């Protein structure tokens, strides 16, 4: 079972290994050539991966996300645009993690302009990703793409905020349940393992996702649980 699960979690890797094994058996010269071709990219990746990991951690430690979030709002204007860019650029995780985060900010009063900028900046111009881009495609490539993308994001945000009105977003929004129990939305979980490290009695990691193993009612909530809910980078944990 364990092996099947492992293959399931790494389908692509498994496929590539099978291809390599087949090549080694039938066309060993091609296998060698492929491996040597990859070697350059593997070495480059090893050069840049640790520094990206550190950079992501440092941003997580020192960028005051709460302060930035408090700068957003209905009439935040230019200031709101700048801080939305900063928030998106200094986040970690894939784009789908941006949705629940932005939804939370939206409930707190951020406007549509802010939301579009955060989602788009989160997707394309995260700082650690820029480092990776300049490594493999060159610094000039990275800089020009960054400038063009930033301009495009602002134009897109303005257009979206003209087309979509604020009340059109609240349509399928459920009322918050005060008596709810603790849930973890695995669709949004990015598998950082923060919850399981902070409270292993309630959270465990299973198949790269957090899972709740204990039934917690809202009234049983404590500071630690509130802290975990607050710190989840994908805002995937909540009382519902």
């Amino acid at each position: 079972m364990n092996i099947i699960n492992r293959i399931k979690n790494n389908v692509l890797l498994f496929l590539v290994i099978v291809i390599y094994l087949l090549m080694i058996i039938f066309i060993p010269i091609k296998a060698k050539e492929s491996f040597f071709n990859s070697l350059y990219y593997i070495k480059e990746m090893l050069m840049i991966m640790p520094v990206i990991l550190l950079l992501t951690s440092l941003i997580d430690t020192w960028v005051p996300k709460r302060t930035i979030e408090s700068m957003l709002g209905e009439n935040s204007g230019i200031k709101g645009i700048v801080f939305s860019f900063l928030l998106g650029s200094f986040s970690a995780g894939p784009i789908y993690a941006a949705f629940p985060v932005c939804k939370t900010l939206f409930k707190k009063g951020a406007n549509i302009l802010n939301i579009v900028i955060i989602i788009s900046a989160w997707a394309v111009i995260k700082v650690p990703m820029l480092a990776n881009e300049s490594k493999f495609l060159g610094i000039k490539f990275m800089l020009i793409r960054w400038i063009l993308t930033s301009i495009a994001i602002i134009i897109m945000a303005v257009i979206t905020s003209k087309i979509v009105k604020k009340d059109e977003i609240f349509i399928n929004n459920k009322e918050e349940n005060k008596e709810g129990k603790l849930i973890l939305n695995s669709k949004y979980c990015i598998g950082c393992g923060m919850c399981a490290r902070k409270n292993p009695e309630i959270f465990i990691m299973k198949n790269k996702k957090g899972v709740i193993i204990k039934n917690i009612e809202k009234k049983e909530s404590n500071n630690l649980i509130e802290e975990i809910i607050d710190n989840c980078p994908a805002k995937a944990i909540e009382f519902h």
Partner: protein
Amino acid sequence: MVTDFCLIISYYKNKRKKGDFMDIVTILLWIITLSWFIYSIKKDKKKTFNSVKTSSKLMKNMIGEIIAILMLIGIILSFIPPEIVKKYLGDSNIVLSTIIAAIVGSITLIPAFVAFPLVGSFIDIGANIIPIVAFLTTLTMVGFVTFPLERKEFGFKFSFVRNILSFGFAIIIALLMGVFY
């Protein structure tokens, strides 16, 4: 034995063509990040290491995919002749190849992290950067697979408008990139 030797030679030639392993940007990045890291440990050791643990876990989750894509690059480079790449992703048919690249990027879901070496390998064997930029931009900004999630949080209209605009602007960015780069 002889083929081995030839491969090693071509590997080092390839390496030299692209410059040394440690280019200046990477060195600078290492210096800045390491100094920041040392400062960070001195200031708040616990918080720093907690963040390192979180990002290591994220990286660990991706490592299978990273290795897979890097090994796949080798296969692509040794099986797809540069002439084919030049023909379909090169300087002819730019409009068509850009639109196709943008569509492929919209429906693919691989981390941007591994997309850079992948598209870098395509540029190395002669692909035009315009379709490549379109692919990179839609890959991250347009989410066909994640559309249901986005719709659930923000409603159909917002998600639809955002994704369509992102697709359009990805192509515009790509074309401008062809002018400025």
